[in-house]
């Protein structure tokens, strides 16, 4: 039963982090280069513009869901299962989602990298 709970929590973590990452990346693309904005109009403008972006707020909510699911999963299952499973599945999910929703050019180079990193994370934390 604990295994089922753990895997459900892992799937929730993966889904919520992919949604959160895509929303946050989209929000920051809308905000623009933070360093340049800081130099131009100051830190307050950066914070106000970031916090005022609805995509950012929804992204943070999704990340909060992912965070609390992680806490649950960590208390039910081993870190050595939860961390690598969630991280490597999130990687693959993000590469797909970034291509579809953010229109990033995920070329062969990035697919290979996503696969290598996902495999490496699974081995390392497993």
């Amino acid at each position, binding site marked *: 039963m604990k295994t089922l709970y753990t895997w459900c929590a892992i799937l929730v973590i993966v889904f919520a982090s992919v949604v959160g990452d895509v929303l946050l990346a989209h929000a920051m693309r809308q905000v623009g280069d933070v360093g340049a904005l800081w130099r131009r109009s100051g830190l307050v403008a950066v914070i106000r513009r970031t916090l005022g972006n609805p995509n950012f707020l929804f992204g943070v909510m999704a990340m909060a869901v992912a965070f609390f699911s992680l806490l649950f999963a*960590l208390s039910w299952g081993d*870190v050595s299962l939860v961390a690598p499973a969630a991280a490597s599945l999130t990687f693959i999910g993000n590469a797909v989602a970034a291509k579809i929703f953010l229109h990033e050019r995920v070329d062969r180079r990035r697919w290979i990298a996503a696969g*290598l990193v996902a495999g490496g994370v699974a081995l390392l934390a497993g």
Partner: protein
Amino acid sequence: MNFRKYLVLAGVTVFAAAGDSMLSHGMKQVGGVSVHHLQGVIFAVANPWIAIGILLLLAFFATYMTALSWADLTYVLPATSLGYVLLALVARFLLHEHVSPMRWLGIALITGGVGFIAGGPALTEHPAIEAGHVPAQDLSSGNSSQIDVLPKGASHAAHTHSGAEL
């Protein structure tokens, strides 16, 4: 990509690794959280390790957002996974723990993957939107350099020849 931007990416790596390890250490102390006592998760925040972990993850979040403002998601994400490599190296060389061959292989894979990404462009530019055509430029840089090796007329001549045979 300048020095300051690499510094931000290094911050993403270090804060993610340090924050995650603090959290997992803290959750070990707090123990299991039952579905029937969801408020247990809220009280977990009172544990100092978890509190420090959350602070570090906030720092991670700030650097992560900064990086996402000038780089692709698929470019920044591998930087977070370098944290696992960092943790394994700390375990081996500072804490003198045993690192198994499988873990060394994992380190090699992650490092290789990050190297792959770092060699490419940080941000997708969208020439298709601006120019409205150029499917040929969608090829990766490796492919287009291979095409340049051919003499200009060669592929064209071969094409017309096979066409004539049909």
